[in-house]
């Protein structure tokens, strides 16, 4: 029996009234994979992510996380996923450290182990000196790191990143790349959406490209650019109207 995929999407459809945002897509992301999910604005990337994590109700299709259906076995499925959303959505009443502690609490975790993991993540992402501040006191790059730390606090097996390097400077972007590669090397499955094609090319072993709610390509990165084209050229060709 084959091992369960980290993310297994089958026939996903998501409609908003008359508009079909995601139109019958199927994807299989293997455990431990670094997977890129690319597409132009409005193509359906964030809607797909929202459907995976339960923020969007599916119109049709199924999604399972490491074998757990995200609708019928939602508790098990959600415990396995960490999300770093595109927009910052921290709790403004909590300190940086408490953002992590409370996030763990929502996942049913508490105690010394959580405290130690929060301190470890703050250390790893260079936020220890800011731990008592409110998140509004952080720079954009620090918020991005906090978002990543929060996504990891409950030790998920699948990490979903919605444009994690949007608006950060080159230095931090490279730093984030190194962290993500290290996390992936530790066995974490990473599902990444980004508008930076060089980022996808550098990090992702396999890439799917979505246009107008439909998958137009899904291949290992090296196969996508096998004919000597750059990923940007391939992307533009596949996503042109």
């Amino acid at each position: 029996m084959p091992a369960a995929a980290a993310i297994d999407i089958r026939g996903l459809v998501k409609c908003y009234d008359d508009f079909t945002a995601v139109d019958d897509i199927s994807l299989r992301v293997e455990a431990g994979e670094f997977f890129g999910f690319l597409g132009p604005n409005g193509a359906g990337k964030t809607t797909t992510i929202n459907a995976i994590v339960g923020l969007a109700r599916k119109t049709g299709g199924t999604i399972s996380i490491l074998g757990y259906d995200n609708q019928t076995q939602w508790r098990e499925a959600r415990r396995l996923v960490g999300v770093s959303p595109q927009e910052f959505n921290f709790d403004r009443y909590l300190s940086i450290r408490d953002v992590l502690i409370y996030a763990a609490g929502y996942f049913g975790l508490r105690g010394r182990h959580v405290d130690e993991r929060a301190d470890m993540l703050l250390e790893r992402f260079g936020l220890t000196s800011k731990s008592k501040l409110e998140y509004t006191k952080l720079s954009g790059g620090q918020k991005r790191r906090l978002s990543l730390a929060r996504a990891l606090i409950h030790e998920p097996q699948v990490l979903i990143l919605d444009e994690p390097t949007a608006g950060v400077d080159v230095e931090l972007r490279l730093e984030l790349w190194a962290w993500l590669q290290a996390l992936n090397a530790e066995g974490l499955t990473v599902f990444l959406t980004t508008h930076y094609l060089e980022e996808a090319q550098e990090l992702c072993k396999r890439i799917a490209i979505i246009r107008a709610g439909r998958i137009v390509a899904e291949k290992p990165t090296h196969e996508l650019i096998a004919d000597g084209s750059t990923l940007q050229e391939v992307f533009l060709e596949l996503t042109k109207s």
Partner: protein
Amino acid sequence: MNAVALLTLTKREMVRSLKVINQVIWPPIITTLLYVFVFGLALGSRIPTVQGVTYAQFLIPGLIMLQVIDSSYGECSSSLFQGRFMNSIQEMLIAPMSAVEIVGGYVLGSLARSLLIAGLITALGVVLVHAVPQNWVLYFGVICLVSILFSALGLIFGLFADKFDHIAILTTFIITPLTFVGGVFTSASMLPPALRHFELFNPIFYTIDAFRRSYTGDSYLAPFWSIMAIVLLSVIALGIVLRMMAVGYKLRT
């Protein structure tokens, strides 16, 4: 059942209340002080006893109910709406938390705030006008039930609202008028007989009438019927908000 998540949200709501203490804890205490001085002590000295106690003592349980209702509704409606507005509620929506756990966390946090405010006003009542609850079971029971009812209503309006202004609709046009005519300042027995029957259509009348009995030992209605009315309304309100939360009304697209 994810009890840790429920308690985490409860704690978060308590932290939030303390972070905005100048908005949510001190104003009801100061308002109550003003009511006690102006209505209870200044004007009330000209009123003979009501239900066997001085007017100032009669006023205290009504004022506690007024603030419990206001704080329960305000806490849940504004916290939930703010969470929607800032998207911070997504933290709970992506976590393994059921509708029961999310609603329970908000309601318990709101109840904690209500008990704190009620406790402070009770202490003021003891010190200023020697108003002491006689039946503590009824005292805590009614506060808890009323807080649950208005917390649930707050959550319903926190979900319905598309802007902060919408949250004020229920308070401005329904809760405040019904509270003021529901017996905070008067006993039903002080009203003309024709108006007394109208009080029975005011749900807030039941809350104040039952709660005042915990102080004076006297009430217009037998407390059993008032408590049954509050329980029934609470069950309906909780049922509605649990359903809204379970389907992700205005939370999940």
